[in-house]
């Protein structure tokens, strides 16, 4: 178990190096850099620009050199300072990572909580109207573009006033709120983006769950369990569910990348200050230290997510042993 964890985390290192190197190479190869934009501002002194150029080696077009000057401090935990916002990358990024984790995490919980029962119902009532209804809902969720869905949700929030139309918390009242009120306020803002992001995964999980459940229910041990006189409910929850859920955990690992990509659009439309919008803004303003650190965070989230999926699989399925 311990060796498994260590080995998996060590395997992430080459992945992070490859991905950050590609990112750096693309940034170096793309036309213009941050200094080109601030050169146009007359109030910024030439000395300052020259100093920036020297500190960050922006004058060099050698990818390996530029990468090394990012890589070596980064290994020691120093991700540098943001070009556009005068603050260290760590201070800017940590809050964003937490916000994205909150959004994606709750979206995952949302899709699992609904997908498992819906998939089971669809399988049990196969080819009946309930199954068809669930099938239609999951097709709807699979096809609705997250941008459009987010905008519809914001329209809904604006028309009814039941939910806040974007943002992560109440800007006006935030400073005078008690911790409990802050918690409730954040949850309140979380609901709509969570539904949007969760629906994408929901559709995929429902379809998978339905087909796995149909397959499991046709197997001999289910008939045996029923023949022993166990109730239908007990057979479903105790015998079938555990077997049908395995492949779902496996696709959970794969779907993390889709989830994070979807998070960018949802965050952008809802004005949720997460990692996605941070990367997007940093790319537009050529804020290299932020881009690089965010990419590291993104890959780490993927690796850890996949690791969690594997651990979950081992917990659910006793046949799988981690070595």
């Amino acid at each position, binding site marked *: 178990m311990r060796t498994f964890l260590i080995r998996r985390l060590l395997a992430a290192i080459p992945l992070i190096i490859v991905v950050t190197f590609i990112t750096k190479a*693309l940034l170096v190869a793309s036309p213009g850099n941050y200094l080109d934009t601030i050169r146009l501002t007359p109030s910024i002194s030439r000395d300052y620009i020259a100093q920036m150029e020297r500190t960050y080696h922006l004058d060099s077009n050698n990818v390996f050199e530029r990468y090394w000057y990012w890589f070596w401090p980064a290994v020691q935990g120093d991700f540098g300072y943001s070009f556009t916002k005068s603050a260290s990358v760590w201070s800017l990024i940590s809050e964003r990572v937490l916000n994205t984790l909150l959004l994606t995490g709750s979206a995952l919980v949302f899709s699992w909580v609904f997908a498992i029962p819906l998939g089971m119902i669809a399988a049990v009532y196969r080819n009946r109207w309930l199954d068809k209804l669930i099938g239609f809902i999951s097709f709807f969720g699979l096809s609705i573009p997250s941008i*459009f869905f987010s905008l*519809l949700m914001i329209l809904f929030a604006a028309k009814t006033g039941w939910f806040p139309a974007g943002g992560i918390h109440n800007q006006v009242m935030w400073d005078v709120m008690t911790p409990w009120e802050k918690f409730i306020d954040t949850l309140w803002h979380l609901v709509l983006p969570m539904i949007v992001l969760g629906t994408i995964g929901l559709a995929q999980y429902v379809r998978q769950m339905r087909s796995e459940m149909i397959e499991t229910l046709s197997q001999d041990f289910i008939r045996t369990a029923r023949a022993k006189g166990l109730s239908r409910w007990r057979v479903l929850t105790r015998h079938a569910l555990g077997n049908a859920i395995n492949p779902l955990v496996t696709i959970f690992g794969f779907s993390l*990348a889709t989830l994070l990509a979807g998070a960018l659009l949802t965050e952008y439309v809802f004005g949720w200050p997460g990692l996605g919008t941070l990367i997007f803004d940093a*790319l537009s303003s050529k804020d290299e230290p932020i881009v690089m650190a965010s990419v590291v965070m993104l890959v780490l989230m993927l690796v850890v997510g996949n690791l969690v999926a594997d651990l979950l699989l081992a917990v659910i399925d006793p046949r799988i042993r981690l070595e």
Partner: protein
Amino acid sequence: MIDPSKLSDRSDSTHDETRLPRSRGRTPSQILWLKLRRNRTAMLGLYTLAVMYVAAMFAGFIAPYRFDNTRHDLPFHAPMLTRIHVFDDQGRLTKPFVYGIIPIDPQLATYKDDESARYPVHFFTRGDNYRVLWLISSNIHLFGVDEPGHLFLFGSDQVGQDIFSRILYGAQVSLSIGIVGIVISTIIGMIVGGIAGYFGGATDFALMRTVEVLLALPSLYFILILRQLFGAGTSSVQIYFIIVIILAFIGWATEARVIRGMVMSLKEHEYVIAARAMGFSNSRIIVRHILPNTFSFVIVTATLSVPFFILSEVALSFLGVGIQEPEASWGNMLVAAQNNRFLNDFPWVLIPGIFIFLAVMAWNFLGDGLRDAADPRTLS
């Protein structure tokens, strides 16, 4: 002396088959089509797509205005689809007409009908110039009203452009990117998958690790980083091709993995061994003998990946790094809805979203149907 390549010519062998008196001599694609035709949702998707793509092709003719026909005095006019009158004052049925528009307050975008001026809807009327498929130049439109009347079927946007016309022009970009992108990425996927599956070993290992990295990364971030590489882009055509190339570069991974798996099993078949024994080159065996047999799976994977291309273009244009104004795309038309006031007061700016949804849904219906049809376990 017989040229060995003649013996393996596909057209010859199928020709022979059709001459033989076989009762079930159907090609795999015929079986696929027969199975698909029985699937009602898949056919619904197919028909929806056919209508959408034909409409996009003849956008200039169907749209009453050009995509950049701007009426700065009429921003955010409400949809007139429900305000086309067919009865006159006496309640008699007449030719459909709309009233003239009187702006009340341009700041608030409020208007009222000018009941003194009626503009009948003419068919095959003359208007803005356009081209169909870069070839036919014309100014005849399917329908329209005489100036100074104006017909905003789905309303107008913030600069007074007709949303209905722009949806049709936007379809040309958003829908064609799906097709062009999938063709390019399928070709890359077939080449890479074919090589990896056929040769195996170190080549396979290297190519498949690349595929895994591409599949593991959140594609949208990668697309955005790649987009930086090309700078702003000058013309709309240039931006269009930049987007297609980037998406195809990311999108081939799924195809490659599916094809590689199939090639690995196909290369052990006797006909491949026979072809090798006849001394054919590896590239010829891959291209002429193995890849044609992966055809049905290629079609299924390709169809299911089209939504990725459509949605990515929409996302890029929505984020402001794709198709730029005044050119229309379903993505950049939704930008207006980002403004909460516009969204709340003029919700018709969301109409392009309905079309994105419909197109993606139709492709998913078709792809699902094709997958079921290609599945040998379902009986034909």
